[in-house]
């Protein structure tokens, strides 16, 4: 990936970080920390990698992305607005009555969202089902799913991992946003889910580990994942919860809390274009 492209993606991600903070601040509700940790991966997928058209979204011309860690809606909605699924003005109505932008992703409400997620663990197996169905229909498009590391405490995650490994869904690439924090504190203290990579290896997955904020590493991982033809791929993305906003970084308190007026001001200064 050339330096110009990296620069373009970085600028886009920075814009999305401002929108994430703005959405959660305006709604005084939502999940900034895990949105800021995954936004670089999402920016890469939506604006460099995937075929993700607004119209004519048939399975032969459209890749699919499932936000299994559904609480990171601010990150997802910022990308979908940029894609043109709905006007950017709608972002300021996030989580409000009569807005299409529900607190967690719902396919019946939000254009560009294919399945309903937010109850943790449930997005991943739906992505596996999509991968099985698309392969059966002869589509060569890809399916991506985004998981949280806290989310990996759900038993259903490992049922889905087992079945994708069993059915060798090579058209499926999963990112685990390994930011190490969940609502109650450190993932390893609340319920140690580590080692996540070994658990996927044991379920017959192709496993890679990267810095989830480095676009070149993300790009290399996706290129490598697509070369694997007999296994699903997982990319363990080491990330920083709250990345880009100094007082939110590595602070579990900003998993699901909005910034106050003063914090909002500081955050927007730090994220200025």
């Amino acid at each position, binding site marked *: 990936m050339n330096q110009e492209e990296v620069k373009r993606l970085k600028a886009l991600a920075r814009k999305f970080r401002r929108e994430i903070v703005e959405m959660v601040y305006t709604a005084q509700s939502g999940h900034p920390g895990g949105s800021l940790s995954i936004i670089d991966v999402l920016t890469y997928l939506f604006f460099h990698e995937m075929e993700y058209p607004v119209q004519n979204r048939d399975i032969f011309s459209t890749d699919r992305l499932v936000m299994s860690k559904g609480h990171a809606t601010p990150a997802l909605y910022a990308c979908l607005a940029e894609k043109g699924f709905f006007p950017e003005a709608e972002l300021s109505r996030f989580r409000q009555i009569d807005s299409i932008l529900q607190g967690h992703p*719902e396919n*019946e409400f939000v254009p560009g969202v294919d399945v309903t997620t937010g109850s943790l663990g449930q997005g991943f197996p739906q992505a596996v089902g*999509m991968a099985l169905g698309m392969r059966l229909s002869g589509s060569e498009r890809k399916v991506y799913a985004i998981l949280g590391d806290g989310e990996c405490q759900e038993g259903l995650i490992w049922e889905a991992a087992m*079945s994708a490994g069993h059915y060798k869904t090579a058209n499926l690439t999963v990112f685990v946003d390994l930011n190490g924090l969940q609502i109650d504190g450190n993932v390893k203290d609340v319920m140690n889910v580590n080692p996540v990579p070994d658990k996927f290896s044991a379920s017959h997955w192709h496993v890679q580990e990267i810095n989830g904020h480095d676009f070149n590493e993300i790009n290399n991982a996706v290129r490598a994942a697509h070369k694997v033809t007999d296994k699903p791929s997982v990319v363990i993305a080491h990330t920083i919860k709250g990345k880009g906003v100094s007082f939110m970084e590595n602070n579990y308190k900003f998993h699901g809390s909005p910034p106050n007026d003063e914090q909002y001001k500081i955050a927007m200064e730090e994220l200025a274009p």
Partner: protein
Amino acid sequence: MEKKASRVAYGETLLELGKENPDIVVLDADLSGSTKTSLFAKEFPDRFFDMGIAEQNMITTAAGLATVGKIPFASSFAIFATGRAWEMLRQAVCLGNKNVKIVATHAGLTVGEDGATHQALEDIAVTRVLPNLTVIVPADYYETKSAIRFAAAYQGPVYIRLSRSATPVVFDENYEFTHKKAGILRKGKDVSIFACGVMVAEALQAAVRLEKDGINAEIINVSTLKPLDTETILKSVEKTGCAVTVEEHNIIGGLGSAVAETLSENHPAPLHRMGVIEKFGRSGKADDLLKAYHLTAEDVAKETMSFLKP
């Protein structure tokens, strides 16, 4: 009376549908021999996904398959398909409004020897409460055949409740299931007996016994529990003035509750609910269990009689 199991009708019809529609795919959770999805699996191995003993994963994976244009039929025993995987049914299938068909066998007491752990007596209650979901309890082998065909053609989530045991045949091969329509199987004027599933045959036999005692019972097959045919229910009770409900399910949340809700809001009338009351099931032969839980034709006749003439 000829006896046939509804799960056999499911397996046979699924195989026919598989030949007619390449979009139909089937998922099972290591019970394909029992649910009879094995017939489809043998003919269409590429379109059959054994998900292993992981029902939650089966239901959510089915939602994903529906998202990319497949028509998934997902099967297990009723207690696991609706109980173990209830939240997946709620979030991924019903809130997502996906075109998923959940066909569960081994509902009710007539599971028999496996006992309480495998006898779903709550599945109608926990499915009837879910928006977007159609809930169907076919009365016999032939109604099952027609209901499965309806589900395949219908756009939206459907739950169909089937049994393990061979039970009396009520209809014939010309019968056609009509969505949202309760069927009057026998006209009467003294009492409306509403039944579903394997209890329909018992209710019909009860009507013969009641006739001998001078009671003219109207028998209504309520095979669609949701959306409920309130018009047929109310019309019948407006005529007869009272109602009995019979189901192989807890009396809370199932057919009895559905009829009670309808009557009390629109046409309050005396009602007697028959079913399982504040109990789980237990091991035994299916026929012995129906006797032990007072759900035979004889029990229906006896309880209807004392309800009418206390």
